[in-house]
């Protein structure tokens, strides 16, 4: 049952979360992974919500709709046998209290196969309130999701593991209890594809696995540490004493060697099929 009071809060949360995730900054530590999509930038100045309506009115409208409209347009108004999705309909979105919907209901749309429906003004008004009670947005967190993302073959995944992963990892060593430490299979899958939440991509958190760098100066002296930043003109590292050191760069000088412990994972990506990924995950979720 979708009641007005149930539906508005998730929408607001979605808008807020979506806006923060799209602000061009990384999510704060501990923030849930953001289901990012779209242009965003809505925040508090996005699309005005409709005024709240007495739930009894919406329930009456639901009844009217279910008897007269749902057969063609679906019980959730998202479209059904022959009738279009009404939630995204221009006419419904621009309607306030049934004033645009009423003529269509009463006259039908003979060219589109819709018969006239004999409803009273009050019934149409209630039915409009029901239609307007649905939160309408491109990103719709309220929709159903599959029960699990684990769709692969664990035995095939174990074989994959032996050939692709075992050189660096062991199910009885570093990965022992992996699926207990990370119980959500989707997060686990993202984790093994690119540990630390991935490098880049939308919705990815910054990696926790440090990249290190060695800078070899013209006199042969070396500076080593955790890579803080690098661009064409500067490399910045934090050495073992915690000191920030900055070295101007010009072309190949000074020599800079970057050691990315996740390069193996990065190089794996173009070689993995989706089945490989699904199989490996099906295996890794068994490592409780």
């Amino acid at each position: 049952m979708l009641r007005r009071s149930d539906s508005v809060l998730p929408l607001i949360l979605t808008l807020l979360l979506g806006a923060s995730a799209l602000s061009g900054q990384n999510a704060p530590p501990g923030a849930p992974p953001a289901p990012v999509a779209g242009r965003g930038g809505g925040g508090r100045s996005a699309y005005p919500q409709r005024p709240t309506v007495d739930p009894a009115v919406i329930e009456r409208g639901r009844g009217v709709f279910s008897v007269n409209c749902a057969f063609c347009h679906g019980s959730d108004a998202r479209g059904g046998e022959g009738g279009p999705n009404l939630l995204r309909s221009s006419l419904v979105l621009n309607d306030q209290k049934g004033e645009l919907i009423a003529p269509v209901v009463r006259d039908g749309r003979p060219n589109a196969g819709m018969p006239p429906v004999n409803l009273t003004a009050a019934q149409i008004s209630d039915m409009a309130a029901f239609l307007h009670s649905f939160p309408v947005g491109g990103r719709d967190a309220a929709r159903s999701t599959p029960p699990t993302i684990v769709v692969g073959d664990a035995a095939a995944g174990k074989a994959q593991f032996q050939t692709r992963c075992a050189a660096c990892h062991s199910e009885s060593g570093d990965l022992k209890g992996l699926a207990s430490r990370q119980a959500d299979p989707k997060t686990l899958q993202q984790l093994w594809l690119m540990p630390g939440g991935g490098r880049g991509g939308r919705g990815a958190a910054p990696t926790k696995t440090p990249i290190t760098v060695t800078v070899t100066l013209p006199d042969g002296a070396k500076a080593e540490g955790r890579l803080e930043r690098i661009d064409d003109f500067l490399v910045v590292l934090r050495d073992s004493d915690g000191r920030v050191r900055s070295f101007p760069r010009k072309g190949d000088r000074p020599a800079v060697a970057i050691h990315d412990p996740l390069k193996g994972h990065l190089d794996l990506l173009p070689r993995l099929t989706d089945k490989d990924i699904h199989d490996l995950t099906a295996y890794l979720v068994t490592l409780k």
Partner: protein
Amino acid sequence: MNSRILACLLLLPLHAGAQALNPADLLKPLSDSWPTYSGDYSGRRYSALRQIDQSNVKHLTLAWSTRITAGMPNAGGARFGFGGPAGAPNIVGGEGTGELNESGGRSSRIVGAVLMVEGILYAATPDNAWAINAADGHILWHYVWKTKGGTHTGNRGLGMWGNWLFMETPDNYLVSLDARTGQERWHKPIASLSEQYFSTAAPIVIGRHVLVGTGNDLDAPAFLQSFDPETGDVQWKWFATPQKQGEAGLDSWGSLDAAIHGGGHMWIAGAYDPESHLYIVGTGNPTPAYTSGTRGPGDNLYTCSLVAINVETGKLAWHFQTSPHDTHDWDSTQTPALVDAEFNGRPRKLVMQATRNGYYFVLDRTTGEHLVTSKFSPTANWAKGLDAKGQPQRDPAKDFHVGGALVSPTNAGATNWMPPAYSPDTGLFYLTSEDGYAMYYLTETDPRGAMGLGGKDERGVATPGTFLTAMDYKTGRIAWRRQYVGSGAWGGTNVGHGLLTTAGKLLFAGDPAGNFVAYNPANGEPLWHSHLGEVSNSPETYLLNGRQYVLIAAVDMLYAFYLYE
């Protein structure tokens, strides 16, 4: 002179003064001023200015900088100081209450073109516009629009006709301002806020037409409208998808309802060919963007296409679809470049476009004849190959999957809104590109699919690299590409590194680390740079009082550089 343009000149308001834009200037190749989104109509972003060149660019120094302050007056909008110059006048318009206006966020972020006409700069962010003295950055006026809402993702800049400026607002109005004072002349509705449209595009003025595109993420019809610059009346409206029975392209959709809601929004300005009167613009992605079952198995015309529209009639002259039946929200709105150049041994009138899906295209811009397709993002894995027409053929297995599909590029695309550039000196087409991977999970189990951008959960995996990429225009082969070492992903459509080439044999661009850089366009070697923190729009150049300026925005700051004397 083109007779239509001459007619437009005669129709200009009598009081058009010394600082008005002469519409004939819009037909000139890019040089002293910057009167339209891409500088000129060609979309090449190649300036004839050569005062700053490879030999002296190392002497580039700051001419001035200025900060724009968005929002309602007294919400941080007023400028106070100790004996400094008086604050710029604030002009307030709009149909909202002002409560929703941002004083920071996207409204304090310049991502669009800054016009330069007769010594005055005109800049915009969502709900805000400014006039700024191009000689020293002094703000002349600030206009703020009280918004009713809408997605405040950015504003791509203003259009100009005589003394009149044109701005689109996120709550879907076309606002015309008097460039001399910032006073509003009129505002006209573009689209319905209830249908969740939002308008970010830069209006393009061609003759007596103001071309206005818009955006939407909720399956609403997409259209380009032409407004009369004097009266604000709508002259024509072109829909990107069929809206009625019998219209061309309908057989590429599952139903008329699917076509009506099929999207294709034109939110980036196109290019214009004055000889053929064709406005050539990229259309957006089809909708629903991901779960495409209701769209049927067809190509979904004319979404994700390069389309040529006769600017006088609003009728489609030709189209070429660069992403048939897109399923990743990879719109093909990227700015095309119009180039007259040799191709297969004879001179041709070309149009080039690098699209968000990772592919580059060259067409004959008079006929739409396909000439070249190439892949500029080597990691792109969503297509099985090219069909007989030269279009990438989507691999449905790489749409998304309940268990996740590893897809390149990410939703942000292999490129995005950031304008590319072309240099006739090198014959190279330049763009910023990204090789990225993301997992696309199908989350919508209802066979009817989701609406808008719903139905999937995208999780980023990795960015093998972001690049300054240079391609041979004739083949699309990568001549060189310079990796932005240390760069992560773009983080969406918000960070941009648009490009500018000049006859001084320079290529200007921001880099992801926040440097503003002059490169050698022949090989990508940096020749000069200044660290600004975060570059947010595309470089521009203009000539004023005998000196060439290079202008760049860094969020809410504008920086102008010239040669140290």
